[in-house]
């Protein structure tokens, strides 16, 4: 009797362990050790400045100075406390509040920045504004991914949609001399790439992952070929688009820190705000969103209530392509000023990661894309102030963050049930 009781008791804890996740304390234990070695052991004993304002701000905030060594010590201790605290809470079967990992991440980031930029001054609004600029194509791409996957078609071709948008907006923008025409043409180009995906994935039921990969290679090859044979010969006539200039929104742009970051941007970025809000709202509150999600979850059920699954998928994948195409336009019209071979540089794949990290939700995917944008920009910001970290290592950062985010932090998430499955009637 005692024997069976023990075995049952064991199994009870056994099942509970399965439910607990020790990721959080382990992650912060690693951060703490890392911080102790790097931020304390290799610290320069000099203050780091954080400049929170730009020259044009209405309210000028003072430059904040943090002593590098002391900050390193504080961060090490606090992250260790978080690790221990969350480990204790999990062992007691209590849920760790959500703000704890967020506070921990901010601490770790502060520690890193203070250490890396010791004896220099970091311009925080510029760091954040740069992050946003790098994140914009990712957000457009991620929205395209969310819509497409929510309707049941895996969109690996985000990279191709961005690239097509970038190429076409450069050419059309130059030929017409109008940035708006370039922007519009980019959406059309993204949509055309989507048509290609739709035809093979929805009509001919080809494996969607393979079609997506093939389309990426195709568009990369095609734009690369046209660029080298055509654009490089006549850069002035073909690859010199009129860009969008920065528009500062009165009053809002004067808010300290976030003002210059969010409200001193180009028109495309403001368009992005509207699209994010519209998609996030419409996906859950409108007939369009309800049908879209129904088709992505259970296409047969949608069919039996009279919804045309094929058409719903076709047009929404097209819409997804158009949105991703706008992201491509942003690259050429606002970031680089012209098209270059493979100018998107894998942004489409990072956007894909943002879709998964954001659990197929427009807002969460946008936040994920912003995080990836920040990781990319950190490298730029730190190379300016001359950080001790080798720049090659910093170049890896966005991808490292992506892998950690998708593999480590996403945990169990449930994609739309029918994503990637072609719908065959009957």
């Amino acid at each position, binding site marked *: 009797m005692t024997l*069976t009781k023990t*075995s*049952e008791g*064991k*199994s009870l804890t*056994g*099942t*509970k362990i*399965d*439910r607990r996740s020790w990721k959080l304390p382990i992650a912060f234990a690693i951060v703490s050790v890392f911080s102790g070695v790097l931020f304390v052991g290799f610290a320069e004993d000099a203050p780091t400045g954080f400049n929170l304002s730009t020259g044009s701000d209405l309210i000028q905030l003072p430059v904040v100075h943090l002593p590098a060594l002391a900050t390193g010590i504080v961060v090490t201790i606090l992250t260790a406390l978080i690790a221990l605290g969350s480990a204790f809470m999990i062992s007691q079967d209590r849920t760790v509040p959500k703000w704890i990992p967020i506070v921990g991440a901010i601490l770790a980031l502060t520690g890193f920045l203070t250490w890396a930029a010791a004896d220099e001054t970091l311009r925080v609004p510029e760091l954040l504004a740069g992050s946003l600029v790098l994140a914009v194509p990712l957000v457009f791409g991620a929205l395209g991914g969310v819509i497409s996957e929510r309707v049941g078609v895996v969109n690996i071709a985000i990279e191709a949609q961005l690239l097509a948008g970038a190429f076409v907006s450069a050419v059309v923008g130059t030929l017409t001399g109008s940035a708006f025409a370039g922007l519009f043409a980019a959406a059309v180009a993204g949509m055309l790439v989507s048509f290609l995906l739709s035809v093979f994935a929805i009509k001919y039921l080809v494996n969607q992952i393979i079609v997506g990969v093939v389309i990426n290679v195709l568009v990369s090859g095609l734009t690369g070929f046209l660029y080298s044979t055509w654009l490089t010969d006549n850069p002035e006539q073909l690859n010199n688009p009129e860009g969008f200039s920065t528009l500062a929104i009165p009053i809002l742009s004067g808010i300290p820190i976030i003002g210059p970051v969010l409200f001193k941007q180009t028109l495309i970025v403001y368009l992005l705000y509207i699209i994010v809000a519209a998609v996030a709202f*419409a996906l859950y*509150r*409108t*007939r*369009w*969103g*309800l*049908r879209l*999600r*129904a088709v992505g*979850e*259970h296409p*047969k*059920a*949608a*069919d*039996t*209530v*009279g*919804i*045309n699954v094929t058409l719903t998928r076709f047009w929404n994948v097209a819409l997804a392509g158009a949105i991703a195409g706008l992201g491509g336009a942003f690259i050429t019209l606002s970031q680089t000023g012209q098209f270059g071979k493979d100018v998107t540089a894998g942004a489409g794949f990072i956007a894909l990661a943002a879709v998964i990290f954001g659990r197929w939700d427009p807002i969460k995917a946008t936040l994920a894309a912003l995080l990836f944008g920040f990781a990319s920009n950190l490298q730029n910001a730190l190379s300016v102030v001359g950080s001790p970290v080798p720049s090659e290592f910093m170049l890896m950062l966005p991808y490292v963050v992506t892998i950690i985010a998708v593999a480590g932090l996403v945990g169990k998430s449930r994609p739309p*049930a029918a994503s990637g499955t072609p719908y065959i*009637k*009957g």
Partner: protein
Amino acid sequence: MKLELRGITKRFGDLIANDHIDLTVEEGEIHCLLGENGAGKSTLMNVLYGLYQAEEGDILIDDEVRHFAGPGDAMRSGIGMVHQHFMLIPVFTVAENVALGHEQVYGPGLLNLDAARTLVRDISARFGFDIDPDALVEDLPVGVQQRVEIVKALSREAKVLVFDEPTAVLTPQETDEFMAIMRQLKSEGTSIVFITHKLREVREVADRITVIRLGKVVGEADPNAGKEELASLMVGRAVDLTIDKAPAQLTDNSLVIDKLSIADETGHRSVRELSVTVQGGEILAIAGVQGNGQTELAEALLGMQERASGSITLNGTELLGLNARQILDAGVGYVPEDRTVDGLVGGFSVAENLMLDRSDGEPFVKFGTLQTDVLNEFATEKLESYDIRSQSIHEHVSKLSGGNQQKVVLAREMSRELSLLVVSQPTRGLDVGSIEFVHEQIVGVRDRGVPVIVVSTELDEVVSLADRIAVMYKGQIVGIVPADTPREKLGLMMAGERITEEAA
């Protein structure tokens, strides 16, 4: 509303699923469509619902020919359908599911879910359903999901309701309630097409019966006809619905399950501290509504559940913790509930499937090489002794009918020296002829003194095969009763009612 199908013919390649079928459903009648699995009932209804297009024939509503290009057209004509596999979106709420496809909106497309909620409440009130419009469908029990389907159909003002095998997922009590709902619908003037192969239900509720066999209407039957008569009409020959078996001769062999618990990866326990003993020479049937832990229990017996605790001992040997290979070597035969997914490799030949579990050594494999002569001889012999209808032993197993596929699985599992046989849903989707054969084989193993566990959701099968019946509910056995226990009592147990010892 009067519905008439005239000369409907539907082909899939060479197969004629519906061959000139005529069917008339009068207003306010319950019309049973009776036929075996694969007789073409569901195909016919999918044609009616616009999911398939018929090659020939007409659909008439109130004597007017209609063409349905899709389910939307059928719905607009007043036809509603409750599918065998519910057409509900699990992550949507009840209201969202009811609204989907004919949403009420504000302005350009803003959802008005309040209208859908009201609709759900109103229709629920009419029928005495207790449905929360804001509950997620995936959280609802199967019986309630079915009611959501009914609400969904009625919210579109369906005048003809088609129920495709609606009772397959219900407990006997829920089935009774469902019958009452059908009668109420009928009294409100709704016509009902009730598709089933369960004779008991047909006789209880039908106004008219149309029997379909091999894609053709073979006749109308009187609702007062006897079960044997209906069965023979359905199958096309005289059928013996009882199983001949001698009283159980218990042997010393035994399977002892002690405090078995099984959890899934989220920690949810599908089987909880279940204890039961099966003696050699008896069939213990595990009854219960699907999803009460039977699948997990059967899988655990073959070592396919990782998070299992407690103990499973077969003739004194502990099976828990062994892998499937070791358990097979211990003499366990296992027929999984879904033969196409877990029992067979569709793209392999009949012969290869017959040796799947013995690929690790002699006689079929020597020095890592397949012994084709030995295999072919073995397979040919099994083909004959199990009456597997296949063009050859090299035919892909996926080309075989369900009954013949099941025979391949049985032939393989029974060709080893068995010390335990576990059979899940032995006759799911089989025709009556195959059912008889499979039942004989299972009883044959029992008569050799081997403990046998049969897991089945078909109460008829449980009652006719079992020596003892264990009823599972929410991962536990609520009672073990003799095979002659009245159905009403089994039904109550399947709904979770515990039966006291003196009753057993």
